[in-house]
């Protein structure tokens, strides 16, 4: 087990390094130099040259990458071209906001999707199963920005129950929790739609196993079999599912953050992409890659802890 964890850690490190290299190369393919983006089209050639040297953009690409990695190790991710702040400070403000959004939605989604999956599996091929399956298909197939804006239309514009915008920069999220209801609801619905398709089949797969027949034959009640045996085993793949869906949930967060103008990491990434803000893009990329990789790693390890039959060599 320890050996497995160490090997997976090493692999993860390589993956994260790979991500930084790919992002670094991609960003230098960007049309238009960031210097022009900062100084504007009418800057004098001298000013352009000075800033290019100052930012180190005249050095060879591998050297620039080396400098960046060296700084990264010292937790210095550079300085945003556009927002006049160190990238680490920006990330420090934005990451907790995204964590709050994603974390709450993930927990809520699990709390709803698991019973829903059980219900769909127990009532399979009956009207309520068809209804719920149909509903989850529709939510899965809906562009999430449409869902978010429809919710705004209903709850903010028509009913005036909730604000249409998430709490802004300087505001403590917890002091304006009603502003978080719609963003969290949107991301939760998107995540449930991601999960419930797998939950139903995961539980169905368990219901045809031999141990279920044995439990029924022993004379256990339907509920005892379902909750004591089926559910416990069906929950194991959910761990992997959360790990696998992490990327999808983070992608959903980008959309939700832009719809509700919620100043989290996703909105930061999107805005930096539009304004060619290299250091911020690189910083967010690293954080997102680390989050995804660590998420998968934890899922793998938990999987082995929860299910003793699984042994890694």
């Amino acid at each position, binding site marked *: 087990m320890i050996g497995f964890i160490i090997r997976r850690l090493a692999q993860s490190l390589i993956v994260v390094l*790979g991500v930084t290299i790919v992002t670094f190369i991609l960003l230098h393919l960007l049309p238009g130099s960031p210097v022009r983006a900062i100084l504007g089209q009418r800057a004098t050639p001298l000013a352009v040259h000075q800033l290019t040297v100052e930012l180190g953009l005249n050095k060879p690409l591998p050297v620039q990458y080396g400098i960046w990695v060296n700084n990264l190790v010292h937790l210095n991710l550079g300085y945003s071209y556009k927002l006049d702040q160190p990238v680490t400070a920006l990330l420090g403000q934005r990451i907790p906001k995204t964590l709050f959004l994603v974390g709450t939605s993930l927990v809520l989604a699990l709390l709803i999707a698991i019973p829903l999956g059980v219900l769909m599996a127990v009532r399979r091929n009956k009207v309520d199963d068809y209804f719920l399956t149909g509903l989850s298909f529709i939510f899965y*197939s809906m*562009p999430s*920005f449409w869902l978010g804006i429809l919710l705004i239309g209903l709850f903010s514009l028509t009913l005036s129950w909730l604000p249409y915008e998430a709490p802004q920069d300087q505001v403590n999220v917890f002091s304006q929790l009603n502003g978080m209801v719609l963003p969290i609801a949107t991301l939760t619905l998107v995540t449930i739609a991601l999960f419930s398709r797998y939950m139903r*089949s995961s539980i169905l797969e368990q219901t045809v196993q031999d141990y279920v027949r044995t439990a029924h034959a022993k004379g256990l009640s339907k509920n005892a079999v379902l909750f004591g045996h089926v559910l416990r085993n069906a929950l194991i793949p959910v761990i992997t599912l959360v790990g696998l869906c992490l990327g999808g949930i983070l992608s959903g967060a980008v959309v939700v953050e*832009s719809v509700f103008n919620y100043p989290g990491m996703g909105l930061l990434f999107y805005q930096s992409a*539009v304004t*060619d803000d290299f250091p911020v893009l690189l910083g967010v990329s690293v954080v997102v890659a680390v989050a995804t990789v660590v998420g998968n790693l934890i899922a793998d390890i938990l999987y082995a802890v929860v299910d003793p039959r699984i042994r890694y060599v």
Partner: protein
Amino acid sequence: MSPASQLSPVSGEITLEGGDVITSGSFGRMILEVFLQSRLATIGLGVIVLMVLFCFVGPLIYHTQQIYNNPNVATQTPSLAHPLGTDEVGYDVLGRLMVGGQSSLEIAFAAALMAVSIGVVWGAIAGLAGGLLDAVMMRIVDTLLAFPFLFALILLGAIFSTSILELIIVIGLVAWLVPARLVRAESLTLRVREYVQAVLIMGGSRRRVLFRHIIPNTVGTVVVNATFQIADAIIFVATLSYLGIGVPPPATNWGGELASGLSYIADGYWWLIYPPGIAIVLTVVAFNFVGDALRDALEVRLQRR
């Protein structure tokens, strides 16, 4: 996967099983069986056919002008002249839906084709080669997969300017990773089969094994994945358009129409918001129905094999 289909190989008679093996060998036959058996798949296929007809044949019957703005007739409610009203620059929404659907479907099909083609070749080579090459190729896939799709799309979208061709390339470049993994897994099991070994022993080249034996045998997995890829690509295109990384006007797609319609939600212009959204949902659900049914059928077939 129904319990009955799992049990059949055990309880089935020998003659019956023999017959099964022969029919299940034909992929075309399998697809036909899927559509005969699964009502959802049939509905899905029906919706897809209708959508394609609507987008590509519709404009031949229902003529509209989709190039020049006409502010005089902007944001009109649905009427006889404009069954779905007009949008903020005066385009007829029904006609716009057809034109937008063309590019949505074209981008989705082409991106899925590109993703699957790269994925198949990459995965099949990695699986067949094994060893160091396999390890390196799959670590590259892992690395790129660590980057959530939408982040990668935004990054690539910022680099490429946006035309239909570039959108296809951007989505294709991001989406090939999953089919690459699936095909590699299958290629690993295929390369140790007797018939593949036999070809190699008889002096057949690796290229022949790859293109004549391994890739054709992964076609089931690939078709299933391609179906889901098309569904996902339609959503990706829509999301990118919402984020402003879409095709510039007068070209459009369902996502772009939906995104620009949504800015009028406070004005109650429902005909700008629901038609493109419903078109997206219908099409994506349809492709998912077909994909699910194909996957179920394929899993049963793989179990029998």
